[in-house]
């Protein structure tokens, strides 16, 4: 059928309710616990499609205390007993693991995590659900959707360093607002997307949910096919946009986009980094499903290489794959030499559970996607920025506008 990418994948026009087979379903150590409980209460003891199901340990990985450990143990046993795909601690953040050759264009992907929209970068329909919904998916292999209407986000021009895809994502959230796309899908198009790497598109789609969107999608193109070929998928076909009708359209010109930041405590309180430059910070955090990929670490390393950070800086690779690449390229050592601490792949301090929790009154500049009050620790404040801004600020100990010379 013709239509927006979301309509084509779900096979019905916007507004209709459909039942769809789920091609990939996943949950993590956090949402897995309640999913299991719901599944048991339903009286279901067999996962319908173990080969399409993934359980990925990332949120508190490794476990921070024995309670967490105990809960993880149950989920781990379940994964083994059901024969579903399992990614142990250290494998990486669910959205990144799923992005390393698992999710393919045109698939329907459901994750028990709000940032499941990340995989829309492949031209898949990917969305987040809660634990009970996930239990329903595991029990039946399918679920219902209301086909969303779509807002086209047309990116013109190209972002040049020090401006990066994260700034584009922040611009988009700032423009639409935290509920500007509730129940809708965002479709990213234009030369700004075609010129963007897969890592960049994943960053962009990751933050779609910060506008309330159900999904954020990019059409699979040559870049997508090349990326997936790197994971052994040959012969993937590109998706060609139809002449379709959008609920709305916004344009963002990347060529004159300044570095942006979301200030505490709302993700849509977006302004130029310039406006808050000089704000003292206690911690810099580089990582998460938004900005913990290889290109991010590479950019960060290019800024801190041969220098020393002026403030405590936590770096967390998004996956083992990213970590291996960083090791191979020598940037891991450069980051450590610059005085940063590198934690094992996973969510790290993003959700305030461990490895970089903020204290009362502390300020963190983070490359994550959410700056809700108390998220990284009670009484802490979070600014969200790009990797380049985080790198420049780590060197000075205050929020700093990244300049061309930072990114070497």
């Amino acid at each position, binding site marked *: 059928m013709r239509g927006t990418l979301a309509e084509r994948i779900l096979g019905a026009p916007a507004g209709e*309710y459909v039942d769809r087979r789920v091609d990939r379903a996943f949950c993590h150590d*956090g*949402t897995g*616990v*309640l999913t299991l*409980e*719901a599944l048991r*209460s*339903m*009286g*279901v003891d067999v996962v319908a499609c173990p080969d399409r199901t993934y359980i990925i340990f990332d949120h*508190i990985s490794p476990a921070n*205390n024995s*309670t*967490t450990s105990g*809960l993880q143990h149950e989920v781990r046993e379940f994964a083994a007993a059901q024969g579903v795909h399992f990614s142990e601690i250290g494998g990486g953040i669910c959205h990144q693991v799923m992005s390393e050759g698992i999710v393919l264009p045109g698939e329907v992907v459901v994750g*028990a*995590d*709000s940032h499941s929209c990340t995989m829309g970068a492949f031209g898949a329909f990917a969305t*987040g*659900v*809660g*634990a*009970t*919904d996930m*239990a*329903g998916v595991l*029990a039946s292999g399918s679920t*219902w959707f*209301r086909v969303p209407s779509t807002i086209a986000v047309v990116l013109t021009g190209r972002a040049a360093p020090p401006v990066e895809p994260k700034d584009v994502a922040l611009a988009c959230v700032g423009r639409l607002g*935290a*509920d500007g796309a*509730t*129940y809708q899908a965002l479709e990213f198009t234009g030369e700004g997307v075609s010129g963007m790497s897969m890592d960049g598109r994943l960053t962009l789609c990751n933050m779609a949910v910060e506008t*309330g969107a*159900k999904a954020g999608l990019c059409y699979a193109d040559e870049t997508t096919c090349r990326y997936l070929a790197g994971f052994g998928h040959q012969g993937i076909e590109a998706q060609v946009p139809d002449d379709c009708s959008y609920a709305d359209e916004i344009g963002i010109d990347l060529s004159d986009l300044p570095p942006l930041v979301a200030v505490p405590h*709302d993700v849509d309180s977006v302004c130029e980094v310039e406006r808050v430059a000089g704000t003292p910070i206690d911690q810099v955090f580089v990582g998460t499903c938004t900005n913990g990929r290889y290109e991010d670490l590479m950019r960060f390393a290019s800024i801190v290489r041969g220098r020393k950070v002026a403030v405590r800086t936590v770096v967390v690779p998004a996956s083992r794959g990213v970590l291996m690449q960083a090791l191979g390229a020598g940037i891991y050592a450069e980051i450590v030499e610059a005085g940063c601490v590198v934690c094992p792949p996973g969510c790290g301090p993003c*959700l*305030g*559970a461990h490895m970089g929790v903020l204290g009362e009154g502390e300020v963190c500049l983070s490359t994550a996607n*959410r700056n*809700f*009050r*108390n*998220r990284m620790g*009670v009484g802490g404040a979070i600014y969200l920025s790009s990797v380049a801004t985080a790198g420049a600020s780590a060197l000075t100990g205050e929020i700093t506008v990244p300049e061309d010379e930072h990114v070497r």
Partner: protein
Amino acid sequence: MYGEGRAVCLGDDINTDLIIAGRYLRTKDRRVWAEHVFEDLDPGLADRLGGAVIIAGRNFGCGSSREQAVIALREAGVTGIVASGIARIFFRNAINIGLPVMECEVGCRDGAGVRFNLEEGWVETGGRRHMLHPISPRMLDILKAGGLVEVWRQRK
């Protein structure tokens, strides 16, 4: 699907971190969630939720997909949620545990009586009846069954 309660008025953009903070998630004890619900928003709020209908503004329940947020509200005694906008995952989660959620703009006075009927699609408070955005028959069925777990149990 009829319900009623006393209004508890909240503002815009109440995210799921504010409903139940991440530090309370690592347990299966639902009482813990009910006890600490809204702690970072207003520590006194939890005690006022027995028999309450929450009336909120835009984007209620945005953020993390944590189902503990809807469970915490239900366990604390909330009988329904009315908001001018409700975030998508939160909306589905509430339906899935049988907690009535309604999208509608209504005036709010703390403590005022609120009545609602989802089948007939209205909510009433302050002497005024407001019509609701209709929800799909499937969602209504899940709500009426008491949640998705119950739907599956009945199927067995």
